[in-house]
């Protein structure tokens, strides 16, 4: 289920109260095979903006963005919501699970908005929680789970609608080294087994080493793009 995701000469300027901030000044990016891409760069380089645009949370000012057959530039707010619901999954640094809500219900959330029946949604959420290694913890709430477990719930939620693209914004930023490695291995496994495109924003080189491609941003422009050794070596250890 490989789709063509193509960004060309994307620009985005934020007009605050002070001088306008040119967050992106012409970024082009193509994802045409299920690969893991790391986006790196110092803060203010535009990586979060790029992530938001990729995830259809925000619309660029200029350039073109096509997601499969959709011309994102021409889509309405509700159409973008539809795209986020069916084709894109998000994983955040701080997990962003709903408070006072069970793991199962959190995972069901995108299906609720997709109009899937409750019974069907719960059945699929069960399976998905099993896939991320949380079988038996369906009724746990976020306060009853470790950071790693919470991130697994978030990953299950991101994957429940079988998206084409998984976007992870500093997915291991709040986790310890061992848990980070577990989460990255899980993402890598999903990438390989489910033919899923994954884009990870990170500033940790070790995390980027799990990826097939590393894109570096600075001041709203791509300054380097390299094929990471992970693709060739298939492991992290050799590159540390």
């Amino acid at each position, binding site marked *: 289920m490989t789709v063509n995701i193509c960004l060309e000469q994307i620009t985005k300027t934020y007009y605050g109260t002070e001088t306008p901030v040119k967050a992106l000044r012409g970024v082009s990016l193509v994802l045409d095979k299920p690969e893991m891409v790391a986006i790196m760069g110092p803060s203010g380089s535009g990586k979060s903006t790029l992530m938001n645009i990729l995830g259809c949370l925000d619309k660029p000012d200029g350039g073109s963005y096509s997601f499969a057959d959709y011309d994102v530039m021409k889509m309405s*707010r509700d159409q973008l919501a539809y795209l986020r619901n069916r084709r894109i999954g998000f994983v955040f640094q701080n997990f962003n699970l709903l408070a006072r809500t069970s793991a199962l219900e959190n995972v069901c959330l995108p299906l609720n908005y997709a109009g899937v029946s409750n019974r069907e949604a719960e059945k699929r959420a069960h399976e998905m929680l099993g896939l991320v290694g949380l079988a038996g913890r369906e009724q746990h709430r976020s306060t009853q789970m470790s950071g790693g477990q919470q991130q697994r719930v978030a990953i299950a939620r991101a994957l429940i609608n079988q998206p084409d693209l998984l976007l992870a914004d500093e997915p291991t930023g709040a986790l310890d080294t061992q848990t980070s490695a577990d989460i990255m291995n899980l993402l890598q496994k999903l990438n390989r087994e489910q033919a899923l495109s994954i884009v990870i924003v990170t500033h940790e080189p070790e995390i980027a080493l799990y990826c097939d491609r590393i894109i570096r941003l600075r001041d709203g422009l791509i300054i380097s793009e390299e094929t990471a050794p992970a693709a060739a070596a298939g492991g992290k250890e050799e590159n540390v």
Partner: protein
Amino acid sequence: MNLRMIFRTAWRSLSVNKMRSVLTALGIIIGVASVILMVALSQGATAGITERIAANGTNVLVIRAAGGMGALRGAGGSALTAEDVKAISALPYVKEIAPEAETNVTATAGSLTWSTTVDGTTPAAQAIKGWKMSEGGFFTEEDVDNAAMVAVVGSTVAESLFPDNKNIVGSVINLNGLTFTVIGLLPAQGAGGMGGDQDNMIYIPLTTAQQRLLGGNEIRMITVQASQQESLAFLQDLITTTLRQQHRLAEDAEDDFRIMDMAQLLSTIEDTTRILSLLLGGIAAVSLIVGGIGVMNIMLVSVTERTREIGIRMAVGATSQDIQTQFLIESALLCVIGGLVGTLLGGGLAALFGRLSGWNMQMPLWSAGLAIVFSTLVGLIFGYYPARRAAEADPIEALRYE
């Protein structure tokens, strides 16, 4: 998102801040309860009055001397006479006719004294008003012809003069110093209503009243019962013509009597109490609106507090419409629950109040329905702006919100 999920989500959000939800709902509860209570009060009052009038029959006309309430009575004397009564009774459609002459007296029995009203009338009055005696009987035509010294007492009079409630029939009472024998006791007609206590009355034969108490052949009032409701208007015209002839009034002279149509009076009273109902209901509705403002306030706070949640929902695909619906349902649910509790509370208070005060309270089903519909509307109207604010949130900023 299906409706069940929306309601489940709304219920959970409301139960997170229980105290806050209860306090907010309290505004609605008090508003709805006061609407229910006010409606029960005014409906009860209306029903009480109309019931009493209806009990006397709506096919009844009451004729009084013009200004008979005061001015003319002294100046021109009574405008109604026994001849008038005779002339009217000869008219078609007249079923019963009861002339009446009232005066205030001091009644004594044994050592007890009581101020009351004596009404001199004929047995027709009993037929028109449909009185069933609780003890003894009413006086007869013969008693009227003989100006017999007999009296039928109302229940208030009986209670005041005969507190031990024994052997009332057959006892003797003094009215302005004249001795009467009690021959009958009327049952209680019910308290309140306009025109004072209907049970604080003593009925004696018309002739006795005229000769012994009033000194003259004055008739203050004539009650006419028509044989059928439909002929009432026609009968009223007939009586007018007859009385004008009787009183030899010139073509351009005004009537020196007034005819009151009970059906007309009833509808006037109903109109009046309906306006009263609306007024009371309106005042109560204001408190419901104040409650609605409280709901809006809390919903705005809730939207701000849950900005992050809104962001998460939008990120996983909720449309603006989804978010708006969620918050609207939440405020509507709060108000519907408030409306239900308020209806029960208002109904309970009305029942309690009715029992304590002895007032007639009536809680029509429509008032409960109206209260609940109205509180739902309050929820939707005052929830709209906060819901709109939530729906218009920018997903990126909402996600970043701390």
